[in-house]
């Protein structure tokens, strides 16, 4: 296991400490809890946004804590949902009296832990609502599953709901726009290599030198298909086909694009992927309104990428354009 760490059991704590030391102008940590909140939390009168999940997806979610995005990021152990008491503390710390929206990625564990926390907060009289992000089209949504997973599209929910809250939206309004994003966002990913959970010390799966896994989850969960490595353009063709089948876009539609690296893939390759994403959209007469290329929702050092499309309307465009100032997502 080649990692720049001290103790596999302490990676989350030490990471959060390093983060707070790096960005004291943005964030602080709740004493005794792996929770990062806006340095000026609670912001009186503003709807507060809380997200979180297992660690190992950095900069998600604590990296998006700041003006125009989240109020708190709750960090579980690596790839493991945080616990209800942590989430409850986060809710209490950021509630500015206008209510709190929980942004949950659709995993059984996350949903259960966040729901338990919401119950605890409601019992204390805090107005809590939640939305569940399920953008991953790799797994078909059927009665045989618990629905689709939440992956990189979650960052668009943070951005847009965050802008709405910053603009003074009510809890109901912020929740409504978050749900609009969720309805219009689709993602799919793939991986070339596994990653190593520090506490496990060995790779989450094995894969041949010439193989890739299509539809890979962000926790090393197996995908839908394993094949020989293909050219970047062919991989993009496949991912885009799946995404566009699930998110029909008429000629002239406008989208935001996110090409997200899973951690081990260099920016060079992400740009090569974006080239093909853009070509395909151009061929179909779909207009790209904004593109984000980089690492937004990672899986430790896994090599691979995901593509996200968000269908936009005027409301989403103006909220996407709003400024944001957080450690990992800045927009002027």
């Amino acid at each position, binding site marked *: 296991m080649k990692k720049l760490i001290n103790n596999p059991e302490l990676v989350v704590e030490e990471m959060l400490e390093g983060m707070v030391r790096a960005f004291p102008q943005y964030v602080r940590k709740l004493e005794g809890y792996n929770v990062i909140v806006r340095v000026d939390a609670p912001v009186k009168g503003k709807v507060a946004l809380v997200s979180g999940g*297992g660690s190992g997806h950095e900069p998600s979610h604590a990296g998006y804590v700041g003006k125009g995005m989240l109020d708190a990021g709750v960090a*579980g*152990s*690596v*790839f*493991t*949902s*945080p*616990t*209800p*008491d*942590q989430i409850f503390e986060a809710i209490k710390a950021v509630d500015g009296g206008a209510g709190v929206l929980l942004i949950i990625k659709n*995993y*059984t*564990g996350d949903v*259960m*832990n966040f729901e*338990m926390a919401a119950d605890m907060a409601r019992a204390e009289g805090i107005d809590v609502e939640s939305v569940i992000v399920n953008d991953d089209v*790799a*797994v*078909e949504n059927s*009665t*045989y*599953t*618990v629905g689709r*997973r939440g992956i990189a599209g979650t960052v668009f929910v943070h951005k847009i709901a965050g802008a709405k809250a910053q603009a003074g939206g009510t809890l109901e309004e912020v929740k409504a726009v978050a749900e609009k994003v969720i309805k219009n966002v689709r993602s799919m990913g793939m991986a070339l290599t596994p990653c190593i*959970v520090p*506490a*496990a010390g060995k790779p*989450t*799966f094995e894969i041949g030198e010439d193989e890739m896994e299509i539809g890979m*989850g962000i*926790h*090393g*969960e*197996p995908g*839908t298909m394993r094949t020989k490595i293909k050219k970047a353009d062919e991989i993009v063709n496949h991912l885009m086909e799946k995404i566009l089948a699930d998110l029909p876009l008429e000629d002239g539609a406008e989208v935001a694009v996110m090409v997200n690296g899973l951690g081990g893939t260099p920016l060079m390759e992400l740009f090569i992927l974006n080239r093909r994403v853009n070509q395909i959209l151009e061929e179909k007469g779909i207009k790209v309104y904004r593109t984000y290329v980089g690492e937004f929702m990672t899986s430790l050092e896994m090599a691979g990428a995901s593509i996200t499309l968000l269908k936009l309307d005027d409301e989403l465009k103006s909220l996407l354009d709003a400024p944001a100032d957080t450690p990992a997502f800045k927009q002027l």
Partner: protein
Amino acid sequence: MAVDSAKLIDIIKAIADKITENREYLTELDSAIGDADHGINMSKGFKVVVERISGMEGKDCGTILKTVGMALVSTVGGASGPLYGTAFMRAGQAVDGKNQLNFEDLILLMEAALEGIKYRGKAGRGEKTIVDALEPAVEALKLHREKGFEAALKEAVEAAKRGMEDTKNIMAKKGRASYLGERSLGHQDPGATSCYLMIETMALQLLGDKKA
């Protein structure tokens, strides 16, 4: 059968040891169809459980079980934290205030645990989850109630084991493994396995007690 608080603590400590011994094994199972952390999560949780219940001999059995549940909820995370946490908390409520547990109490608390898991996880039998080991065990306990606690307990362990092994032949419909569709076939469910290990350990402790 008669279990006092001290004995209950011993049983829970034995379960904690068993889970810790099987940390790699459970994680291995989870790596095939999940995210390779079940053993890590559970052993982390039971480490705290042991800390919290040490010295609780003076408390009633309900309080001890609720403490286990709270510890699991607040340390395990993931799916198994709220599930097992709720199970132990419900079990504790079922025997609240009791300083001594008899066979009927055991049945009560196991039923409560099962209900807690089903409430929290909304899974039914045959969805490749903890329920597939726990529900058959509870049913066996009740079905063989008249044969006495020793025989019934042995049946329960057998039933849990069969339930666990049968998860190999079913497609997951709940939890992370459900994303795999048919690719989940052939793999034994980690949660059903940890559940079986707990039931087996509890039985060994209780039967050992009886024989002794």
